[in-house]
């Protein structure tokens, strides 16, 4: 039996709710660190960044599903929805902490940030793109929209991923490596899709 088949067999008993349960681990660890005072002297920034980073990691993980199937023969398609919904949940928490603990409901400043600060604008657009995706991440929505239209809608994942990574690159001072690595991962994963598409196009002509 191939390695892929062995992995598939191992994953067979995994139910969707278990993926959600796994997805609460980063949040639980964060809570633990809040209550043990392990987040340093500026816990607000640490919480905000940690939630945003988890969201971005989940977005990248979601983008890995198709290439893994295509190039490694590993089919994780049935977990993709949960990964996406979790990414949205963490992005929502990230946004919520920004409004509550960080900006502390200073709506005038929040409003100004949302029109004037490029990285905040970009982050917000990414979030707004994830919103319809999360709302349609159920079988009823797929049936109602029809598979084609649903798929078309969910192409929003791609610009959302790019903007989320750009949000990270843009907010830091100087050029630390970490945000650039996430950007590189997103660009590579999207590039793979473009490459496959072009190869298909040339194969059919």
């Amino acid at each position: 039996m191939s390695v892929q088949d062995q992995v598939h067999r191992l994953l067979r008993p995994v139910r969707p709710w278990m993926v959600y349960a796994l997805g609460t681990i980063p949040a639980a660890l964060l809570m633990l660190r809040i209550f043990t005072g392990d987040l340093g002297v500026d816990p607000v920034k640490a919480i905000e960044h940690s939630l945003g980073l988890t969201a971005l990691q989940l977005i990248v993980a979601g983008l890995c599903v198709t290439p893994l199937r295509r190039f490694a023969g590993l089919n994780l398609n049935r977990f993709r929805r949960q990964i996406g919904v979790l990414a949205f949940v963490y992005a929502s928490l990230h946004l919520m902490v920004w409004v509550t603990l960080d900006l502390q409901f200073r709506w005038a400043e929040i409003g100004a940030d949302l029109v004037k600060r490029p990285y905040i604008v970009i982050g917000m657009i990414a979030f707004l793109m994830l919103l319809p995706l999360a709302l349609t991440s159920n079988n009823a929505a797929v049936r109602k929209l029809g598979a084609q239209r649903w798929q078309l809608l969910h192409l929003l994942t791609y610009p959302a991923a790019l903007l989320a990574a750009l949000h990270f690159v843009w907010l830091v001072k100087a050029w630390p490596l970490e945000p650039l690595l996430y950007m590189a991962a997103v660009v590579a994963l999207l590039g793979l899709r473009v490459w496959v598409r072009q190869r298909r196009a040339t194969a059919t002509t």
Partner: protein
Amino acid sequence: MADRYTTNRLNSGLSWADVTPKEVFLNRRQWLAGSGAMALAATLPRQAQARIEAAKSRYSTDEAPNSFEDITSYNNFYEFGFDKTDPATHAGGLTISPWTVEIDGLVEKPGSYDLADLVKGMPIEERIYRFRCVEAWSMVIPWIGFELAALLNRVGVQPGAKYVAFTSLARAEEMPGVARGLLDWPYREGLRLDEAMHPLTILATGLYGEEMPRQNGAPIRLVVPWKYGFKSAKSLVRITLTDSQPPTTWNMMQPNEYGFYANVNPEVSHPRWSQASERRIGGLFAKRVDTIKFNGYGDQVASLYAGQDLAKDY
């Protein structure tokens, strides 16, 4: 980031402020050994060991200072890495003795000054200042130091001098951020001469009654309380009097984001973030407060900029 010193805080009821960091402890021991007070050291509590005699100052704020833990574990000191915990983690091995400061350019008595000679005779004061970072967070810090003007007067400023340039240490062997080339080293900052001569501008050699912790810019650093924190260059090795505006690190890197003046000003936004308010560091529910022009030191310094358009000279 995880701070291994604070993980057991809930159990012990102690905070970072109660613990003497190893590097401070070693440094202190060295100093004590030198002064023959070794036997005394073991018996004295932390407060009693505060060894820098400093007069109170009328320039101090009466706001409550941040804790020693806040001030020494949350630092932007890119010579040691981008992360705010990097300085506390990596600065322990920095050699701060011997230390010389080169004073040159348009001065009467240029030279390579040993730190002890440079500080000798200076009126040491405690200055409790607000400290506002360009990243929109702030602290209140009880610095120990003396007015830069006192030093400049001692070395004699030549008539043609208009600016003061500051250079920080860039020692790759002891500074991982320098070794990795995170910025264009050495770190450089500068002030106009009238800013440098202003009584609020100090050279700080300590905080909380202690010698300057390494992560805060030991053994001597600039503190200019009405400007964003990046103007207050750390671990100074050179002070140069010049007749033209010196190049400064952040300004060279992103001139549209970091001006030469960098006065705290809620009316002038940083291109990427608002400067309207700031979070006063202090735990999970750290309060966000309105940022005040010149960081609240307008009464003393606003006149320096009379006739200047601060939106242009940001």
